[in-house]
C-alpha cells in the first residue's frame, strides 16, 4: 500500500490522524484535526512545531517519538486554545515515518464548543457523541435531583423547627431546651439557667377562661424575649413554667437585674377583652460554674430549689442558688 492509499484509508477511519515523514514533517492530516487549526496548514508543518509533548516529558525529538510505538502520549497545541489531546504513534516500515492518531479524551467537552464541532467531525464508531449525550443527560437528571433535595431539605428544616417550637408562644419547647442544655454541658460552656414560674396563672385561667390564659402566656413570652439577648434561649417547659438559658453569662449582678426587670414587667396588668389579668413571676437562677462537672439534671434542680425559695419568700421575687447554698452551709 502506498502512502496515498494509506492516507485515504485513515481519513475514513480516524479523522484526527497525522501522517509524518522521517523528519517529523506532516505529510497528511485528518479533516477534523485540520478543522482545529483553520489558519495553519498542518501539511508541511513540523509536528513538534504544532504540538508540545506533555507526557512523556523526555520525548523532545522525532527519533525519540518514533521509539514510543504503542505508548500513550499526552499532547497540547503550542498556540491557543491549548486543547489537550491523547495520541498513539504507529511507525511505518523501513523508517518512512509514522501515523499518529489523536483524540480529545476528556477535553472533548470544551473542544466541541471551542471548535464548533459537529457529529460529522467524528468517526461513526467514536463514542464522542454518546459521551456528550451522557454528560448532558446526566447533568439534567442531577439538576432535577438536586432541586428535589433542596426542597426536601427545606421541608426537613421546617419540620425540625416545628418540633422544637412551642406552638402557642413561639418559644422553644422542653425538647429544644433539653437539647440545648445537653449541648452546653457537653461542651463545658459556662452559662446561667433561670427557672421562671408565673404566679396566679391558674386563677386567670379559672376565672377568665383558657383564651385569657393563652393570651397571658403569649404576652409573658413576648416580654421574656424582649428582655433577653438574641442568643439566649427562652423555652416554655410546662403550663406556666419557663426556662431561660443565658449562654456565657454568669455575672450574678447582671442576672439579678434581668430578673428584676422581668418581674417588674410581668407584674404589670394585661388587658384581654376588657378584662384585666394579673400575674407575677417567681424566678430561681443557677450557674453552670457552681458545679465542677455540671449536668443538665443537676442545674435544673438547683434552679428549681432557688425558685421554691423565691415562692416561699412571698413570690414575685428572684433568688440565686448561690445564696441558697450559702444559707445551707
Amino acid at each position: 500500500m502506498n502512502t496515498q492509499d494509506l492516507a485515504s484509508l485513515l481519513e475514513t477511519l480516524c479523522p484526527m490522524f497525522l501522517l509524518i515523514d522521517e523528519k517529523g514533517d506532516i505529510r497528511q492530516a485528518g479533516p477534523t484535526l485540520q478543522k482545529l487549526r483553520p489558519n495553519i496548514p498542518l501539511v508541511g508543518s513540523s509536528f513538534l512545531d504544532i504540538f508540545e509533548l506533555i507526557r512523556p516529558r523526555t520525548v523532545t525529538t522525532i527519533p525519540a517519538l518514533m521509539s514510543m510505538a504503542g505508548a500513550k502520549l499526552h499532547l497540547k497545541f503550542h498556540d491557543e486554545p491549548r486543547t489537550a489531546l491523547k495520541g498513539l504513534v504507529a511507525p511505518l516500515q523501513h523508517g518512512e515515518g509514522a501515523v499518529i492518531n489523536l483524540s480529545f479524551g476528556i477535553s472533548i467537552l470544551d473542544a466541541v464548543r471551542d471548535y464548533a464541532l459537529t457529529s460529522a467531525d467524528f468517526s461513526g464508531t467514536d463514542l464522542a457523541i454518546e459521551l456528550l449525550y451522557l454528560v448532558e443527560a446526566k447533568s439534567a437528571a442531577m439538576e432535577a435531583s438536586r432541586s428535589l433535595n433542596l426542597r426536601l431539605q427545606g421541608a426537613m428544616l421546617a419540620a425540625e423547627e416545628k418540633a422544637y417550637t412551642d406552638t402557642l408562644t413561639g418559644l422553644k419547647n422542653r425538647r429544644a431546651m433539653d437539647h440545648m442544655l445537653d449541648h452546653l454541658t457537653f461542651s463545658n460552656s459556662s452559662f446561667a439557667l433561670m427557672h421562671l414560674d408565673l404566679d396566679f396563672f391558674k386563677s386567670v385561667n379559672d376565672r377568665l377562661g383558657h383564651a385569657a390564659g393563652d393570651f397571658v402566656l403569649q404576652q409573658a413570652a413576648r416580654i421574656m424575649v424582649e428582655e433577653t439577648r438574641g442568643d439566649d434561649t427562652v423555652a416554655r417547659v410546662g403550663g406556666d413554667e419557663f426556662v431561660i438559658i443565658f449562654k456565657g453569662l454568669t455575672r450574678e449582678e447582671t442576672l439579678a437585674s434581668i430578673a428584676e426587670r422581668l418581674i417588674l414587667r410581668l407584674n404589670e396588668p394585661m388587658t384581654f377583652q376588657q378584662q384585666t389579668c394579673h400575674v407575677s413571676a417567681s424566678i430561681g437562677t443557677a450557674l453552670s460554674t457552681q458545679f465542677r462537672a455540671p449536668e443538665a439534671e443537676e442545674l435544673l434542680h438547683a434552679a428549681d430549689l432557688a425558685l421554691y425559695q423565691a415562692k416561699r419568700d412571698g413570690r414575685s421575687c428572684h433568688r440565686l442558688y448561690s445564696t441558697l447554698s450559702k444559707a445551707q452551709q
Partner: protein
Amino acid sequence: MHGLINRAIQSFVRATYGRSCWLRVTEAAELGFVEFEAMLIYDDDVSIRVMDVLSAEIGRPKAEILEDVGTYLVSHPNMEGLRRLLRFGGGTYVEFLHSLDDLSDRVRLAVSDLALPALELRELSMTGYQLLCDPGLPGYSSVMVGVLRAMADDYGALVILSHDGQHETAEVITVTLVESAFSEGRHFDLGARAE
C-alpha cells in the same frame, strides 16, 4: 409512573393552558399537591386520573392532548434540554429515526429507573418507515407522533405521519419522508450545553 412523565404533562398544561387550569386539574384529580416531583415515582393511577380530568376540563380526547405533549417536549423553549438530547440521535432526520431503536436504552442510561417501552424502526423504502411502539405505557405512541412531527420541523424535514393501528401488541406509526431537506430546520450546536 415516573415523576418525569407526570412532570412533562404538568409542564405542558401550565405552558399551554395556564397555571389556573393546572390547579383545577390537580384539584379535580384529588392529588393533594400541585407540583409533581421529577425524581419521585407515583402510582400509575395518579397519572391516569390527571389525564382523565384534563381531557374533561379542556374538552379534547386524550390521544390528541398527548400528541401535543410530544410536540411540546421538543419544540417549547422550556424543553430545550430535551430537544438537544434527542438531536444527539443523529445528524439527519433519517439518522434520528434510526436512533429511536436505542431510545429506551439511552433514557435508562440517563435516568436508571425511567423505563420507556421499546421502539423499533422498520425501513420499508428510502422514504417509508414504520415505528413500532411496544406496549407498557398507555398513550406513548400518541406522544411519539408529536415528537416525530416536531423533530421533523427541527431537522427541516417534511414528513407525513399517521397512526396505523396495531402490529401484534405494538402500536404502529407510519412515517413518510416527503423531503429530507425541506427547510433550514433549527441549528444544533454540539458544544452549546443547554442551561
